[in-house]
């Protein structure tokens, strides 16, 4: 191989690497939607201390949100949407179980999770486990959350998190996500088509 051929080969390698990087950046989010069904799993206590897992909800649709109650904007907005959906489902509401999985369990338990969720809708079940069980639950839903130190936040930290609502089917399959800001009527329509 002469120098020129080496140079061409290197440029081809660079181009291939760039295409690869671009594909990695662009593809995963689209691929996620068409990905084969997977089954999230969790084992987390409710406020009464009873450990709940996916099997407890077989036969029902689950609307799952990962959030924290010290969140003034995203979480109340999404819980309001969920409440509206549950009200508007009417008699079908008992086939849908909304879950709020705390990503800030220690503080949420100290502040009171049940009162908070009941203020939105009595059907919303709050789950708050230890750090390890919470990590495992989030990983099984393939979502992200993280504690961020922030002097301008209450107690000096806030949580960043995937703010979508996740729909799980009666057999435990992950079905889809409703991105943050999906209007309640759109979520309702999707559910009614499945019920």
């Amino acid at each position: 191989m002469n120098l020129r051929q080496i140079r061409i080969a290197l440029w081809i390698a660079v181009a291939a690497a760039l295409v690869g990087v671009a594909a990695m950046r662009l593809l995963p989010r689209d691929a996620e939607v068409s990905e084969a069904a997977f089954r999230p799993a969790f084992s987390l206590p409710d406020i009464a201390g009873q450990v709940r897992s996916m099997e407890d909800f077989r036969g029902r649709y689950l609307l799952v949100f990962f959030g924290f109650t010290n969140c003034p904007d995203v979480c109340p907005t999404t819980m309001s949407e969920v409440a509206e959906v549950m009200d508007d489902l009417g008699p079908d509401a008992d086939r849908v179980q909304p879950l709020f999985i705390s990503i800030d369990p220690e503080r949420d338990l100290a502040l009171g999770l049940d009162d908070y969720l009941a203020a939105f809708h009595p059907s919303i079940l709050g789950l708050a486990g230890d750090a390890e069980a919470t990590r495992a639950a989030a990983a099984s839903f393939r979502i992200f959350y993280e504690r961020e130190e922030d002097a301008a936040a209450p107690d000096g930290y806030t949580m960043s998190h995937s703010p979508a609502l996740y729909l799980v089917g009666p057999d435990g399959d992950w079905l889809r996500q409703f991105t943050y800001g999906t209007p309640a009527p759109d979520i309702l329509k999707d559910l009614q088509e499945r019920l």
Partner: protein
Amino acid sequence: MKHMALALAVLTVPSAALACEAVTIGDISVRHPWSRATIGAARPAVFYVEITNAGATDDALTGIATPAAGMPMLHETVVRDGVASMPHAASVPVPAGETVRLAPGGYHGMLMGLTAALAEGESFPVTLTFETAGEVTVEVPVLSIRAEKSPCAAAE
């Protein structure tokens, strides 16, 4: 007693109506403020509002103050790559000729250190400070914890 009730009714009705009207200072008008009821006082409350700059020069909302909270701040919900975070916003730009909304999923006032729980039906004052226009105070109605927008915005 009857007179007192009447006086109270007269006092409360106009203030409720005022919430739907714009309060103006210089080129800036502020309207449709609202907040959500809170469960207890330990969690932060929220403040939403619409700001219009009718002038030809840009302005910015640089701060909020209220007797209802010890530490009111401006924040912005940012959803990037599917992850929501809520950084502190040093100021909210209000460009010339534009309307900017502090609304769910975007800029909002975060009211930390509440002096008391916010109950639906109550109201509290918030003073907004603008870089150029100065200060303006609005009375903020506390809506249901499930509220998603100002009833005034819906009525228009």
